[in-house]
């Protein structure tokens, strides 16, 4: 286990892209068919920092869930680093998800019964990492984020900014090449939001791909590219000047 794993350094996996070709997602709500994502084409290159914007119900979270292999498209082709995800078994999807993505959520999704350190270690439970090494990696990452004093705290004892930084630490402990963030600053005050965006910028600067769903234009301007969605469609995909 290299010392780089726990750092905010560039990921060690080879660069690649997320590629969607005519990917759509439909749900049945009762007897009604809901087209959450219309056929969509999108390419995200390794090293991109993409902000996905749109109103509620525009399909941005659905898109993010498909990108992170948390959800499966109804139609179309989605490739991760050239691998057609439709061909993968459940186990292979889980492994690809584990090895490729780190997830950050608006509501942090920390487990209340675990300490901060245990929450960060959780991501290593399903890897061949000893408990001792996992503990060390988690602690080192916590120290880099300036939260080593909170190692034994429970999530409810943290401020929103601290909780989100812990969630980011958990997302990063696997050293994933891509971080997917769903409204990561949605529950934070301005100061905490700036801290989180600062972290994302630092990660991006070191080569990590970041895909972030946000309502905030100001937050979106931190990205290198902004994808606008409306009614389940991508209506624009532009670089930030």
């Amino acid at each position, binding site marked *: 286990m290299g010392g780089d794993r726990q750092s905010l350094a560039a990921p060690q996996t080879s660069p690649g892209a997320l590629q969607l070709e005519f990917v759509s997602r439909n749900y049945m709500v009762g007897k009604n068919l809901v087209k959450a994502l219309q056929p969509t084409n999108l390419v995200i290159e390794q090293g991109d920092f993409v902000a996905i914007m749109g109103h509620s119900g525009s399909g941005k979270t659905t898109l993010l869930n498909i990108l992170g292999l*948390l959800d499966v498209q109804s139609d179309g082709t989605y490739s991760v680093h050239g691998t057609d995800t439709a061909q993968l078994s459940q*186990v292979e999807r*889980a*492994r690809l998800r584990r090895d490729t993505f780190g997830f950050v*959520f608006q509501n942090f*999704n920390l487990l209340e019964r675990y300490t901060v350190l245990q929450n960060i270690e959780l991501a290593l*439970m*399903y890897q061949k990492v000893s*408990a001792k090494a996992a503990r060390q990696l988690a602690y080192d990452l916590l120290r880099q984020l300036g939260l080593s004093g909170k190692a034994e705290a429970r999530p409810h004892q943290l401020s929103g900014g601290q909780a989100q930084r812990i969630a980011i630490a958990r997302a990063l402990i696997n050293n994933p090449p891509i971080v997917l963030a769903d409204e990561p600053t949605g529950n934070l005050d301005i100061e905490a939001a700036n801290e989180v965006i600062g972290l994302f910028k630092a990660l991006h600067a070191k080569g990590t791909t970041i895909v972030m769903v946000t309502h905030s234009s100001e937050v979106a301007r931190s990205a290198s590219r902004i994808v606008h969605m409306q009614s389940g469609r991508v209506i624009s995909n532009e670089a930030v000047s």
Partner: protein
Amino acid sequence: MIAKYLRAAYEGIVRGGRRTFLALLGIAMSIYLVLSLVAIGSGVQTQIKEQVTAIGSDVVGVSSTSPTEENDINTGQLLNGLSLPTLTLDDVAVITRQPTVTSAAPIRYLSGDIRYGSRSTSPTFLAATTSEYPSARGEVELAEGRFFEAEEQDNDIPKVVIGPATKDALFGERGAVGKKISFDERDLEVVGVLEPINSVSVGATANNLDNVLYGPPNLVGDVEQRNLYSLVLAKVSPTSAVDETAATIKSELSKQRASDTFIVATESDRLNTSQTILSVLAAFIVIIGLITVVISGIGVMNVMVLSVTERTKEIGIRKTVGATAKHIFNQFLIEAVILSALGGALGIVLAVATVYAVRQFAPISPELTPQLAGMGLLLSLVTGVVFGISPALSAARREPIEALQTDRS
């Protein structure tokens, strides 16, 4: 990986609090019940076997099996489930005549209280027999005194031998030999006290085999009934085959009485009968035990189902960070198995304590062997697996995105 699962299982169990503890207690009680019942049953079985074999492998028993129309049925005659006494002295003579029989003693069971002053007891066996009883019975040991002699059998005051529990009930620590006791408003003289035998009961109770009285045929007050017996014990000479002797006795007796009015039984016959009864009892115990295990298993399943429901978001988070369905399945199954195993271990501890207490305070020796304890633990593990599979499958099948959208973590 196993260590990680065990740690997660420990945290899950600890988090479950009182509800999980109660499920654990349910498993503990069911395993405790199974082990205790089987241990006690096994101990009783061993002791009954010892008592059956104590009569002697070289003793053939001839029992009367059916009442005759001339006889009234009353509780005294049907004592201890035996048939009406219909064996006569002529039958005894036929048995005694067999060259391979060294001695034979008829026995008639009576019932009633025997008294000494203000004290009284109701013996488990109150038997009229002959002076041949010790030699026919084989292993009658006396703690004090002697058995009554042949020439004393017609004495006006019957001379009797009592068991140690009978002696304790009537005389306490004082000596019994030479004392006069009464039965059925007649005086009896105690001439001997038997050594204690291994018994499943203590005190002068209804099933204590040390609470007995043996007296001569004239214990029976009704002269017409005096020479009718329910059992004849016949000792076979050491050089002769017991089964062949039993067959000969059956053949010879059949010449003078209907063959369906008596049974000739050897030790193996007696053992088979007792084993059959005990096997039915053991099967009943096991069924009762298994029902309790199933009920406690349902308790474990209930707790695990609730646990899966309450931890749906956790499942989503774990899947998000890389857990496969198999990881989630293993985690919840191991949690159920650990929960059951802890319950099983507690049950074993309680059973061991109970067995120890029973041995200290009751005259039976429950047999809780390491193998039986191991079976208990195995049973709890199997219970955990069987009743943990369904909740674990349910957890493993949760879609991550749906699990994440619940508000339970």
